[in-house]
C-alpha cells in the first residue's frame, strides 16, 4: 500500500503542463470553436508525441499501455489547459478496437496521433465528427466505421465541443466490441479532464481575487469570497484520490464515482469562478469562458450524475 504518484508520473504531468502552457492553447480552442482545426491538430500531434494516446494502446500496436494511472495524470493536464478535440473519444476508440485484426489496422494510427477518432454516444451525437478521421458508431449489428459525411455541426454550450450526428452507413467492423470496458476508460478520461478543468478554474480565480481590489483591499481578503474558494478546493482535492483509486482498480462503479465527483467538483468550481469574477467572467471574450463552459458539458458526457450514482448503488464501491 502506497497511494502516491511516482516521479515518472509527476514528470509526465509537468511535461504536458509546460508544453501546453507554451503552446497558446486558448487560441487553438477559439479556432477549433469556429471549425478551424489547424492549430488544434498541431496540438494533437504534440500531445501524441508525449505519448498520451499510446497510454490506452498496448506496446505491440505502437502504444505503451495500458497505463490507466498515467492516462488519468495526462488527462488532468489536458483538462487544465482546455485542450479541444475528441480526447476521451479517442481513448474509447482505442479500447473498442483493441482486438485483432482491428487492432493492427487502427491502433498504431491512434497511438501516433495521426488518427483522431470519435464515437457516437448511444442514441446521440458524436463529438467533433467534422474533425475526426475515424467515426465509430455502435449500431444494433455491431460497431460500424461510418463512411458517410457527418451531419451538420450542432453547437454545444461549450463552443469548443462540436457535435454531429453520425450515420452507421459504412463498414461493420465487429459484431461485439467491448463497450463496457471502453465506457470505463472513457469515463476515467472524462473524470480526469473534469478535474483538470476544475483545477484551472480555481487557479485562475485565486489569481483574480488577489489582484482585484474593491473598498481598497483585494476582494480575496473577504471571508465570503475565501470560503467559496475553500469549498471548491476541498471538493477538488477529495475528487483527486477517487480518480486515482479508480485508475488503479478500473472497477466500473469506482470509475463512475470518480466521474461523478470530479465533474460535480469542477462544475461547482465553475459556478464559484463565474461568480467571483463578476461581470468579466460572464463574457465570451475572457478566456475563463473556455473552462466555464467545458465544466458544464463534461458533467453529462459519458455518464450523467444519475447513471453514475446508479452504478455505485448497484455494484458498491
Amino acid at each position, binding site marked *: *500500500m*502506497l*497511494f*502516491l*504518484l*511516482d516521479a*515518472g*508520473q509527476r514528470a509526465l504531468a509537468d511535461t504536458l503542463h509546460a508544453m501546453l502552457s507554451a503552446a497558446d492553447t486558448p487560441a487553438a480552442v477559439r479556432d477549433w470553436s469556429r471549425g478551424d482545426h489547424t492549430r488544434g491538430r498541431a496540438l494533437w500531434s504534440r500531445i501524441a508525441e508525449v505519448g498520451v494516446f499510446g497510454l490506452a494502446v*498496448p*506496446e505491440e500496436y505502437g502504444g*505503451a*499501455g*495500458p*497505463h490507466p*494511472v498515467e492516462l488519468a495524470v495526462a488527462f488532468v493536464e489536458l483538462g487544465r489547459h482546455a485542450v479541444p478535440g475528441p480526447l476521451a473519444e479517442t481513448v474509447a476508440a482505442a479500447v473498442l478496437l483493441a482486438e485483432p485484426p482491428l487492432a493492427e489496422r487502427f491502433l498504431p494510427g491512434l497511438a501516433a496521433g495521426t488518427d483522431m477518432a470519435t464515437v457516437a454516444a448511444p442514441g446521440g451525437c458524436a463529438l467533433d465528427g467534422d474533425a475526426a478521421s475515424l467515426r465509430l458508431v455502435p449500431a444494433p449489428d455491431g460497431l460500424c466505421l461510418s463512411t458517410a459525411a457527418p451531419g451538420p455541426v450542432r453547437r454545444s454550450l461549450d463552443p469548443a465541443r462540436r457535435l454531429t450526428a453520425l450515420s452507421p452507413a459504412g463498414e461493420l467492423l465487429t459484431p461485439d466490441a467491448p463497450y463496457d470496458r471502453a465506457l470505463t476508460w472513457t469515463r476515467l478520461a472524462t473524470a480526469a479532464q473534469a478535474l483538470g478543468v476544475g483545477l484551472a478554474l*480555481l487557479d485562475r480565480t*485565486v489569481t483574480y*481575487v*488577489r489582484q482585484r481590489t474593491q473598498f481598497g*483591499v*483585494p476582494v*480575496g*481578503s*473577504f*471571508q465570503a*469570497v*475565501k*470560503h467559496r*474558494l*475553500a*469549498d471548491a*478546493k*476541498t471538493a477538488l*482535492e*477529495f*475528487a*483527486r*484520490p*477517487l480518480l*486515482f*483509486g479508480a*485508475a*488503479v*482498480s478500473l472497477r466500473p462503479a*469506482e470509475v463512475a*464515482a470518480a466521474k*461523478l*465527483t470530479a465533474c460535480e467538483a469542477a462544475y461547482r468550481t465553475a459556478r464559484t469562478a463565474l461568480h467571483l469574477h463578476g461581470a468579466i467572467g460572464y463574457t465570451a471574450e475572457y478566456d475563463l469562458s473556455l473552462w466555464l463552459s467545458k465544466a458544464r458539458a463534461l458533467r453529462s458526457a459519458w455518464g450523467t*450524475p*444519475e447513471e453514475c*450514482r*446508479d452504478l*455505485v*448503488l448497484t455494484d*458498491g*464501491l
Partner: protein
Amino acid sequence: MGGTGRKAAIVDLTHSPADEEFRAAARSWLAAHVPRTPLPSLETEEGFAAHRAWEAELAADRWSVVSWPERFGGRDAGLLRWLVFEEEYWAAGAPGRVGQNGVSLLAPTLFAYGTEEQRARVLPPMATGEVVWAQAWSEPEAGSDLAALTSRAVRADGGWRLRGQKTWSSRAAFADRAFGLFRSDPDAPRRHEGLTYLMFDLRAPGVTVRPIGRLDGKPAFAELFLDEVFVPDEDVIGAPGQGWRIAMSTAGDERGLTLRSPGRFLASAARLRELWRARGAPEHARARVADALIAARAYQLFTYAAASRVLDGARLGPESSMNKVFWSELDLALHETALDLLGADGELADGAWSEGYVFSLAGPVYAGTNEIQRDIVAERLLGLPKGRR
C-alpha cells in the same frame, strides 16, 4: 501495470499480506467480543461506565491503542494498520470510544513533547480506560479565538496554581483528568506566547465540574471552575510558555488523521445503504445515499494518500483543515438522510441513528469551527490575503 523497462507502480492500493493478517486477527477478536446489544449512551453515567469497561476489555488483549508502542499497551501498528483496525472496528458495530480525547489529542502530544516519565505514568492507564481524559480548551470568551484565553497558571512552590473557567469540556462530566492551555505569562508580548500546556485532576481540591446538557439533555460536556488548583511541575507538558505551539500540533492531529478515521464513515455509509434498501429503496433518497457512499470512499482514499505522504516523510499541514470540513459535513449528511428514511419514526430519540445524529450536529463546530478551517484553507493552501474574520 504492464510495459517493459518500468518499475512497479507506486500507486498500489493493496494491503500487504502481513497487514491482511492483522486485519483478520482484529476481525476475529471483534466478532467474538463486540457486545451483541449496543451499550447505553456514552453521555450518561451508566453508559460512561459501560464504555470504560469495554476499553478495559479491548486493552486486555491489546486492541485499545494499536498504534502505540507495545510498552504502553499498543501493538506498534503504524499508520496503515491503524487505518485497517479502524475499518474493522467500525464495520463490526463496536462501541464509541470513551477515551478518544486522551488517545487522539493528549497521547500524540505526549509522544511529541512529553517526557518518558510522563508517558510511562499517563499512557498505560489511558490505554485501559482506568483514567479517562477530558479536554479543557475553550473558555467563555475564547472559542474559535482560542488565543484569547485568560485562565491563569500562576507559579507556586513545586508547580502551578490554576485559576479561571473552562467550558464545553467534552467528557468532563464523568472523566477523571483534563488537559488544556493556561496563561502563565500575562505580560508576554504576543497573546500566543506565555501559554502553558498542563494536565490536571478533575477531582483535585478547587475544581468544580458543572455538567452541561447538550441538545438532547445528556451531559456530554461541562464547565470547569478552577480555584487555586495545584498542579505539580511533573504535569506540565513541554516548556512553560510553549503551550500554543504544542497545542497547535495536537490540533493538527485532531483535524488530520487520527480523530475521525475513514472506517467510521465507511461503516455508517454501508448501514445507510442497508437502511435505504430495507425501506424499499425510495427514489427521494437515492442520490443522497449514493453520495454518502462515494464521500466515505473519497475520505478513505484521501486518508490513504495522506498516510502515504507521511510514510514518505512529509508532514501534514493545513490540508488537515479540508479533512475536518469534509468529515463533519459527511457525518451530518449521513445521519440526516437516515432520519429522513425513517419517516415519522425519524424523530424518535431511541432510534439506532438518533444518538449519532445529535453527535453529528456538533461536528461542524468542535475541533475548530468549519469557518476557521475554511479560513485556513483559503489563506494557507490557496494563499489568499488575511482579512477581517
